[in-house]
């Protein structure tokens, strides 16, 4: 008998169902096995499995059209009918669960006739244009017509039909041709069950049933968020990628990892030669289970955009035209500049920035280059400006700088708290999973100045929204903890067995003080005390309470305090160490976790090992053959300050646009202008590159091998599907620079680099490319204690032994409102754009969001005579910019909101130097501003525009002289 424990994938290392097979219905999680026979084959499957899935597991393929294993059984197409001994009729195998001793027959003359006759009905209302149809070669309807042996359509084609239905081409990425629709509802169900948006429905009934978006709107005007789940689900070419319509069906595919957000979705890059035809979310992906969002699914066109930097370029001054040079010349030029600078200004006068968008291996190499070849610790990364407080706060309290859970853990959460994060926009695929859980009845608490879309989850439970004033997070978390402590909601057993009593008692005494009560803090947070108490109870009384947070927690002057406050709350309620609970930072960029893990910070070697620790240093020195400085180097803001002061003169920046993304843009620009040598390695001429002297062409994630580590510590493979546009992968460029600087590096493949990482990093000792290929992905720590990785952290103890509560005194931000700056500006993300927008702005995603706007509450707008669409001058203590107005009541009065996806918006011209006390993470989320109607762009914007035009002019061919690139010479 065949035995299937299904889903067999209960942990890494156990081979799961084949992601390339559609089993028809989702797996059952029951542990009770039921035996049945299908066409004489005996098989045992978990109770609750459908007959269709059981048959597929047994290798028996029953025809089907409306069934797909990411959707609940629906039973509409009727093709999967079977005969079951002792039962009447022809039950659909998708909706029939197995039962003990059941005897199923899947092929009889009667069934063959029934299926053929049903298919005949389908085809009587379907165009016969298979040869010219975009789905030709990949059409389930065509396959099933073949499988059932349809040979004629006796009804003819003159009857009522939908063949004249109009095509909706409004979406930039896919087309909707209802003439080919078989009304299987897979798209509608995918929109509901997988994505959770409920944008699609069936309108009308009977033969008039048709798929419509929203209220029969064009897709582009509907609630559709273009995640692609419907396109993926469509068994015909009704919903079809325009890229496939243009190019035809792909001929091979490679599984790789998306380079957008911290969810780290796995995709099949479907190719024709070296042309990427489409990205299809990979069902075997452990982070996304076959789901995607508009960015990963469709916004890959930037990789072949005309703006790509294709050749190395150098110049002596930023006022000179760029000169195209060979790789060799660019590298030699760079090395000489760096060495000359050090000769003139000292070893400490240069540094570099690693990228949260590049691979672990590339990030590792850049920090190694800095520590070993530059000879200092002046390395930092963009996590400085996003999640550095996460690292600090979680390491202090729980001993590890990372989230505690898998994404799947949310499916066991009873209450989830979302703080300062907007998952539906910034982590859309995980948001879909959250919404699924909310539809199952989990409670939601949102702590955010702005009413995020997660609160509008269709068919979810009603959430509690705590719309606090920006900058009062710590007061809020203290108030919540106060309720937990004073209302007897603590998990005493957990605290006693898992936490350090001295720290706990100090904290408890502090938090129980009346001044931390919701009532006392109401005046600070602006949130009614009884609402806070309700929220605290919903979390404290939940069987499993999980906390998810984003940059709304970290990007504050008390970012680190807040992270510790979150850890306190989780430990106090025992919500650590099992599935369904935990503290989960939602990482912004694809490899923020990885870049932190890889030793990008000035004080930490890979694996968060402090440079001050002689034992650690000794291990690295042995391996690297150099002496490592025992003093932490400069952080990014320190580098800027030092540059302006004249002591820091050269920088190597890989894949990071500090000129756009860092706060107080004018300060950053001044710092960059003060450098003697700025080496930028990027795929585009980004804002930072406009201040550069060397421009090294970067490679996209499609053009290289490596790994990314997502927000759940999951190491995923990035696989090369096309050649780097300038011939070199990013790691090869860093290696060349190191060699030119006289510190030899020799790696033949990123897997060699990973082997070195594993050798030197205790949490990575078990990681290798071979194991990644075998398991699909690995969540670190992966070592002798956890050979297949660690999905849930801190199950038995903390890396520091006992958990340490930390006293979290609320201190108001120095960034305060007053009569001159009466409003608080906070910033965030939007679904269609990613971070600084360098990638997404170069795709048709801009059709959703072509400019950043300032959201302002109706009452604040009325006070200033502002109407929708007016130009608004936004002035802070450090600068001014101009954006268009959008009237919105998603924030409370007194709070305004914008995004920073377009460089010309200058959102960071107004953000200030205020930063986290522990890590210098900038306080992006709180800026006191005034807003008024204006008639022209700000002075900075006019300057930006001029500078931008000039720098683009200097890039034009002919501005310098071109020579062929010689990538191979450096390999």
């Amino acid at each position: 008998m065949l035995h299937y424990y299904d889903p067999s994938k209960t942990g890494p290392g156990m081979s799961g169902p084949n992601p390339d097979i559609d089993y028809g219905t989702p797996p059952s999680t029951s542990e009770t096995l039921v035996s049945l026979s299908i066409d004489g084959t005996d098989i045992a499957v978990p109770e609750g499995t459908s007959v269709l899935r059981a048959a597929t597991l047994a290798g028996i393929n029953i025809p089907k059209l409306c069934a797909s294993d990411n959707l609940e059984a629906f039973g509409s197409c009727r093709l999967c009918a079977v005969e079951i001994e002792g039962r009447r009729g022809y039950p659909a195998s998708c909706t029939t669960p197995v039962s003990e001793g059941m005897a199923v027959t899947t092929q009889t003359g009667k069934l063959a006739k029934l299926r053929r006759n049903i298919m005949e009905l389908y085809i009587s209302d379907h165009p016969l244009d298979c040869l010219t149809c975009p789905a030709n070669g990949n059409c389930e309807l065509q396959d099933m017509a073949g499988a059932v042996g349809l040979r004629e359509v006796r009804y003819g084609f003159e009857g009522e039909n939908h063949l004249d239905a109009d095509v909706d081409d409004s979406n930039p990425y896919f087309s909707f041709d209802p003439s080919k629709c078989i009304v299987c509802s897979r798209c509608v169900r995918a929109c509901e069950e997988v994505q959770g948006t409920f944008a699609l429905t069936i309108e009308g009934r009977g033969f008039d049933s048709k798929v419509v978006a929203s209220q029969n709107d064009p897709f582009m005007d509907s609630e559709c968020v273009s995640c692609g789940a419907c396109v993926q689900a469509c068994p015909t070419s009704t919903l079809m990628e325009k890229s496939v319509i243009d190019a035809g069906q792909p001929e091979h595919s490679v599984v790789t990892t998306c380079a957008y957000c911290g969810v780290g979705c796995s995709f099949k890059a479907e190719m024709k030669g070296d042309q990427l035809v489409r990205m299809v979310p990979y069902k075997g992906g452990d982070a996304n289970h076959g789901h995607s969002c508009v960015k990963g699914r469709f916004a890959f066109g930037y990789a072949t955009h005309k703006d790509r930097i294709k050749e190395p370029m150098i110049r002596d001054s930023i006022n000179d035209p760029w000169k195209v040079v060979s790789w060799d010349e660019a590298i030699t030029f760079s090395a000489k500049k760096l060495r000359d600078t050090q000769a003139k200004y000292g070893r400490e006068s240069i540094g570099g920035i690693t990228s949260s968008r590049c691979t672990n291996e590339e990030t590792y190499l850049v920090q190694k280059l800095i520590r070993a070849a530059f000879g200092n610790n002046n390395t930092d990364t963009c996590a400085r400006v996003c999640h550095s407080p996460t690292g600090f706060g979680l390491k202090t309290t729980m001993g590890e700088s990372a989230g505690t859970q898998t994404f799947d853990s949310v499916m066991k959460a009873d209450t989830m708290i979302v703080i300062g994060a907007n998952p539906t926009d910034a982590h859309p695929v995980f948001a879909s999973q959250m919404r699924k859980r909310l539809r199952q009845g989990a409670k939601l608490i949102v702590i955010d100045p702005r009413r995020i879309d997660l609160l509008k989850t269709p068919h979810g439970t009603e959430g509690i929204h705590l719309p606090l004033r920006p900058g009062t997070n710590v007061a809020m978390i203290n108030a919540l903890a106060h309720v937990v402590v004073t209302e007897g909601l603590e998990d005493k057993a957990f605290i006693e067995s898992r936490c350090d009593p001295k720290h706990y008692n100090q904290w408890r005494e502090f938090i129980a003080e009346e001044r931390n009560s919701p009532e006392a803090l109401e005046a600070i947070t602006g949130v009614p005390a009884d609402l806070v108490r309700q929220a605290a109870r919903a979390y404290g009384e939940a069987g499993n309470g999980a906390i998810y947070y984003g940059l709304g927690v970290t990007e504050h002057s008390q970012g680190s305090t807040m992270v510790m406050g979150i850890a306190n709350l989780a430990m106090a309620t025992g919500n650590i160490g099992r599935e369904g609970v935990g503290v989960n930072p939602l990482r912004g960029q694809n490899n923020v976790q990885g870049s932190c893990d890889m030793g990008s910070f000035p004080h930490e070697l890979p694996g968060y090992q402090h440079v001050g620790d002689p034992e650690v240093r000794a291990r690295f020195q042995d391996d690297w053959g150099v002496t490592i400085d025992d003093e932490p180097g400069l952080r990014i803001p320190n580098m800027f300050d030092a540059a302006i002061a004249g002591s820091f003169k050269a920088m190597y920046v890989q894949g990071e646009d500090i000129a756009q993304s860092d706060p107080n843009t004018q300060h950053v620009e001044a710092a960059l202008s003060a450098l003697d040598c700025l080496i930028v390695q990027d795929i585009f001429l980004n804002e930072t590159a406009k201040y550069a002297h060397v421009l090294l062409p970067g490679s996209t994630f499609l053009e290289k091998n490596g790994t990314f580590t997502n927000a759940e510590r999951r190491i995923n493979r990035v696989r090369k599907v096309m050649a780097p546009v300038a011939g070199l992968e990013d790691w090869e460029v860093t290696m060349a620079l190191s060699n030119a600087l006289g510190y030899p590096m020799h790696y033949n493949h990123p897997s060699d680099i990973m082997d070195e990482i594993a050798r030197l990093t205790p949490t990575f000792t078990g990681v290798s490319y071979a194991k990644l290929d075998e398991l699909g992905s690995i969540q670190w720590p992966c070592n002798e204690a956890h050979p297949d990785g660690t999905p849930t952290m801190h199950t038995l103890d903390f890396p520091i032994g006992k958990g340490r509560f930390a006293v979290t005194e609320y201190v108001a931000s120095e960034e305060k409102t007053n009569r001159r700056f009466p409003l608080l500006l906070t910033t965030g993300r939007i679904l269609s754009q990613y971070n600084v927008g360098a990638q997404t702005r170069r795709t048709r995603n801009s059709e959703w969001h072509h400019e950043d706007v300032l959201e302002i509450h109706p009452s604040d707008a009325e006070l200033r005579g502002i109407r929708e669409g007016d130009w608004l001058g936004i002035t802070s203590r450090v600068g001014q910019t101009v954006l268009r107005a959008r009237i919105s009541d998603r924030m409370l009065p007194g709070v305004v909101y914008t995004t920073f996806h377009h460089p010309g918006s200058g959102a960071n011209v107004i953000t200030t130097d205020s930063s986290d006390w522990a890590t210098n993470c900038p306080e992006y989320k709180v800026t006191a501003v005034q807003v008024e109607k204006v008639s022209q762009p700000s002075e900075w914007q006019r300057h930006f525009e001029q500078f931008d035009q000039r720098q683009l002019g200097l890039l034009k061919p002919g501005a310098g002289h071109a020579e062929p690139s010689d990538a191979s010479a450096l390999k």
Partner: protein
Amino acid sequence: MATRIYVPCETTALSMGADEVAGLIVHYAGIRGVDIELVRNGSRGLFWLEPLVEVETATGRIGYGPVEPDDIPGLVEAGLFEGQSDHPRFLGPVADIPYLKRQQRLTFSRIGITDPLSIADYRAHGGFNGLDKALLLSPQAIVDEVKASGLRGRGGAAFPTGIKWQTVHDEPWQQQKYIVCNADEGDSGTFADRLVMECDPYMLIEGMAIAGLAVGATQGFIYLRSEYPVAHRILENAIHRAEAEGYLGDDVRGSGRAFHLEVRLAAGAYICGEETSLLESLEGKRGLVRAKPPLPAIKGLFGQPTVVNNVLSFAAVPFILAQGGQAYADYGMGKSRGTLPIQLAGNIRQGGLIELAFGVSLKEILEDFGGGTFSGRPMKAVQVGGPLMAYMPESQWDTPMDYEAFGQLGAGIGHGGVVVFDDTVDMGEQARFAMEFCTVESCGKCTPCRIGSVRGVEVIDRLRAGENREANLALLEDLCETMVDGSLCAMGGMTPFPVQSVMKHFPDDLTA
């Protein structure tokens, strides 16, 4: 003492002018200085006599009907207020009208007799005895009583009600369970549900409350056909009064047990009478059929264990509890126990409600009760059980009303509606109508029903136009088989029955 006069407030009577009749009676009583008490009762279900005016006399209730407004002056003149017989509309004691007298009214024992909204009237005629009894019994004992009655679902599927209740009863009690009444009465020729709700609404409330006690459900919903405004008004009013009197609410009759009831207006689609689409609709979604399993008894409304029964099934329960399951089971034949409320309609002289024990022959209904066709022409076909059931030729009219006996003929009893056709009917047109009805009412979920019904109309049209007779007959047969075997629910699965019956019994009508 005031003379009590009854004028029905039920929809059929209203549509025949009952309100105007009532107004004129009050008017003339005023003119004549006669002290009357006008009672708006329910209908007796003798529709050809509506509006049926009754006058209470020492010898019982004397009937006049059908009374048209124009008749009032003459009736008054002839001694209406005294119950005099000197008028063509005089019917004598209503209880003696043979059509009524020959019936076995267990369920409909009160209709037309009482003021539908008077709880006192309801109690005075045995109402709430069943609930009182149920409150003394254990839940299992209630279920056992229903099982003993042999009651089968009167909505059409004839599933044993007691077994359905047992399934819901056996689901864990620490969860929300629901009682849902399917009152989306939409079969052609049916009106018994409406009569219950308009003429004796407390009976339905009582039946549902008993069901709630039996299975541990604290909330009930009546999914009411949206085209029943009178029933809606009466039900809302009755529920309100029952709550005020403690028959519904948190503490039913002081038992400490809760049962709440709400009316929800249906979405105006035939398919929402199918129990799973009804549940979808009740949840606020499109009325789309759900695949079974899971059974609604296990995962029903909002995913919770749910009893879904037809109005008539719930309406039979108070009698069963009050008199005992056996008293009900004493009526009927074979596996069809108790009484069947037959609704006689179509081309018939004496249409109306006929409640009789199972076993009566169709012919008796048509002739003894119906009195032949309305047109006076010979009958040609009878459709029993709604638009998805077979057309029965005269050769089958001796069949006793019994689920199994009808089933053996490929016919069905369904909800008990009987629609009569005379010899002018074009049965080919009727076959086409069956498919056409399905094209209009199909929910569109499954392929055989959604596309099959449209192709069915087209093939029948071709047959009737004389195109390729043999090939199209074979295709129609195939299509019917595909719909029967392949459809998701009874809508598509039974649409072919009338078509197949025409092909079998009236083949000449189908082809040109």
